[in-house]
């Protein structure tokens, strides 16, 4: 990956190719999640056997997990700011918070899954179960991949492999993490809050 926008070779567009490529990937991810959300919306209310959404939702718990993901986004930009300023400890601390918040989110969601399964909602129990688990499961995989990426960045910063002029590495990872956050904003509203 390029060390930073100032170091990459000149491009005909005048923008960094890595960043342009990654934003294109994010644009395609919008469509990917769009199909999964569409499938959930189409099947919404079509399940003929329970449990039904209103029977099993635990809004306070999901609000807590949403809060952790939202806070991790703030921690991510603070970590990026630290890398750009060359404040290594600051960046490492906030990147560790991002990883911890991502882990907390996944732990809460795992608890939620286990509760739903114990209530009888499985991947094959109903159209609601199928579309819900595929949508939210895909999102959780994205969170997990993001956590691995953040851990790798943490190690690289710790080993002084990412100087301030190489902050683009962290910025691109941040774009991914924030995208995962905004997808959850949509899921939290459309799936959980709009009944």
């Amino acid at each position, binding site marked *: 990956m390029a060390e930073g926008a*100032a170091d990459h070779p000149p491009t005909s567009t005048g923008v960094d190719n890595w960043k342009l490529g990654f934003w294109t990937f994010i644009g395609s991810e919008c469509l990917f999640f769009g199909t999964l959300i569409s499938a959930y919306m189409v099947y919404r209310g079509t399940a003929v056997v329970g449990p039904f959404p209103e029977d099993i939702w635990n809004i306070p718990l999901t609000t807590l997990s949403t809060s952790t993901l939202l806070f991790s986004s703030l921690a991510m930009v603070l970590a990026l700011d630290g890398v750009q300023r060359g404040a290594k400890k600051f960046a490492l601390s906030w990147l560790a918070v991002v990883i911890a918040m991502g882990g907390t989110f996944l732990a809460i969601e795992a608890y939620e899954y286990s509760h739903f399964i114990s209530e009888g909602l499985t991947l094959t129990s109903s159209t609601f179960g199928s579309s819900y688990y595929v949508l939210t499961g895909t999102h959780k995989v994205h969170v997990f991949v993001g956590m691995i990426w953040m851990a790798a960045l943490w190690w690289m910063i710790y080993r002084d492999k990412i100087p301030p002029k190489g902050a683009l590495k962290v910025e691109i990872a941040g*774009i991914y993490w924030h995208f995962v956050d905004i997808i959850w*904003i949509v899921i939290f509203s459309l799936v959980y809050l709009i009944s």
Partner: protein
Amino acid sequence: MSSNAAAQEEGRGSDAEHGAHGEGGHIPLRTYVLIGVVLAVLMGIKVAIYYIPALDDVRTPILIALSTVKIALVVLFYMHLKVDHIVFTWVFAIGAALAAFMVGALSVIYHVLPRFHV
């Protein structure tokens, strides 16, 4: 220098001046924290709306509007599109708009039109 080479040189100069944010401009730390507070407040409002039965009829449009505001804040400030090159905004906006259209159109076809026996 050929015009192509000159354009490339201009591009390099432009990037060097703009740093990691492409079009220049660095979002200050205080703004990040302020946006974080606004996002937390908006989430609190969304959850509160869920628990107010009187708002049942208007819950959906309000929640969609609040979510749109939240997404816009994250994309503009945390993902830096406010200060970044406009091409990134277009690349993202096209994907997001198509996805929103798909979700909206299918929701209307399957859940709204049947109410009117269309």
